[in-house]
């Protein structure tokens, strides 16, 4: 499906954007250590700045996770139910993801509007900037979960894609 290809490209673009966020964050913290220890003139903005960057790339990455299916879950019920139940359980899960993502858009949007005119101390940016990623992530998650629901309904093997091996928790 061409729409699916577009969503794939969107997801990849978002993932690369998040990756740039991680690299820039590495630079900011290194700069903080350098300025404090070597120059003895700590920049005040680095702590808040790196946290802000992290929330952005986490929420962007989390949206990619919905499409790449790397969010961790436990299929306890699948051990006892017949395999034919799997697509139904997955569909319920995707609906839940869609619902919560919709909440992220709605309530995240409210947070953005409420805190548009207050400022983050030291950074000086509107507080809304910390809440903005929730909204963007929510929109992406809505799209990606809807895509999964439709593809599954059309008989595509969306549930058989293996989880990415580069995920290493613990």
């Amino acid at each position, binding site marked *: 499906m061409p729409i699916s290809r577009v969503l794939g490209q969107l997801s990849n673009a978002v993932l690369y954007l998040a990756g740039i966020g991680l690299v820039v964050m590495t630079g900011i913290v290194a700069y903080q250590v350098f300025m404090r220890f070597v120059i003895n003139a700590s920049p005040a903005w680095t702590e808040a700045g790196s946290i802000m960057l992290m929330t952005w*790339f*986490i929420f962007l990455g989390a949206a990619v996770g919905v499409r790449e299916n790397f969010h961790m879950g*436990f299929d306890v019920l699948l051990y006892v139910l017949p395999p034919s139940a799997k697509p139904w359980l997955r569909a319920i899960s995707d609906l839940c993801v869609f619902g919560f993502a919709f909440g992220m858009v709605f309530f995240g949007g409210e947070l953005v509007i409420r805190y548009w005119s207050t400022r983050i101390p030291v950074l000086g940016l509107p507080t809304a900037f910390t809440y903005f990623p929730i909204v963007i992530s929510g929109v992406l998650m809505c799209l990606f979960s809807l895509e999964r629901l439709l593809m599954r309904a059309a008989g595509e093997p969306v549930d058989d894609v293996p989880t990415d091996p580069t995920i290493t928790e*613990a």
Partner: protein
Amino acid sequence: MEYWILFGVFTGLMVIGTPIAFCLGIASFATIVYLGRPAIVVFQQLNSGVSAFSLLAIPFFIFAGDLMMRGGIAARIISFAGSLIGHVRGGLGQVNIAASTLFGGISGSAVAEAAAVGGIMIPQMKARGYGADYAVNVTSMAALIALLLPPSHNMIIYSLSGGGNISIADLFTAGIIPGLLLAAALSVTAYIVAVRRGYPTEPFPGFRKAGYFFLVSIPGLMLIVIIFGGVRSGIFTATESSCIAVLYALLVTLLVYRSLGWDEFIHSVLGAVRTTAMVLFIIGAAASFGWIMAYLKVATILTAGMAAISSDPLLVLLMINVVLLLLGTFMDMGPLIIITTPIFLPMVKTFGVDPVHFGVIMILNLGIGLNTPPLGPVQFVAAAVGKITVMEAMKSIWPFYGAGLVVLGLVTYIPALSLWLPALFRG
């Protein structure tokens, strides 16, 4: 009723396989809606749960671990360990544990460690006639050493879950003796099993060769010195050391070993982003869940319930350990730390248990859970590398579980094992 909604929705969604972050978020949302209070707080907490500077250590340490694995730092450390103790009976098992201990001193991820050390050691062990189950079990249990030895991002998660005032430096230091104790217990167990199975020894490669392996692994091993020395001498904080680990791993793999290509670098970055996003999204959702739990005073009620059963700290710790081991069979470490710390920590504090000590207990306990099916990610990685099923590994893992539980018992009931070293450093 609100308690049933919170835990019922969470459990119900979890068993059907909904990703854990969404289980937490939706259960929180449903509860606050039932209570008739503004649901916006759920999304505020989703955000503020991931807005802490200390959390930066998670992406950084994951990123650094991945770079070290791809860039050959881990492989060189293993060669060095092999030249040192390969000549003991069942030598490769001992090499595996020694390499895990060294690598554990620069990485905090047991999964990365199982992949790095196991990826190299397990095929070698199988080729020399070791049972695949033995190789897998030694690998998966020794990988847990990484959780206890500094650096350990799980301890940072614990510190934050405990309210953010538990010293990360103290937690890092507290894990050292228990980590080495686990290494020793596994080493003895691996030796006994090796003798009974009649596994071979490796020839000592000679001092020249051993010296060479030592030299080439120095740049990697220096990271231990740099991180520990840097934090202890005040150049950077424990959190910032994670960023230094990334820069150092890049420096070594790009300039010294020249083993990291552009493609691998991009893979490392994107891999770290995926893992971090998954873990921290759960942490954010767990903050919403934790907020509702605090609002409903769940911890207070549970503490009262447990205290009604017993007020003996030894018995309470035993009960908590059993509960955590059970939970650890089907849940992963990070989310469990986040969910259970706000419940158990206030409880054990009232019985006089030090938060740093309890952190070490929790990390070791949940670490063992990483090797217990149905959800044992470290065991899965090791078994996959060894090309055996988890069931095959389970048949002979019991002596190693035994070693882990003995250490857990010692760590639980001898607080000094955890608390002596931090006190020493504090002077």
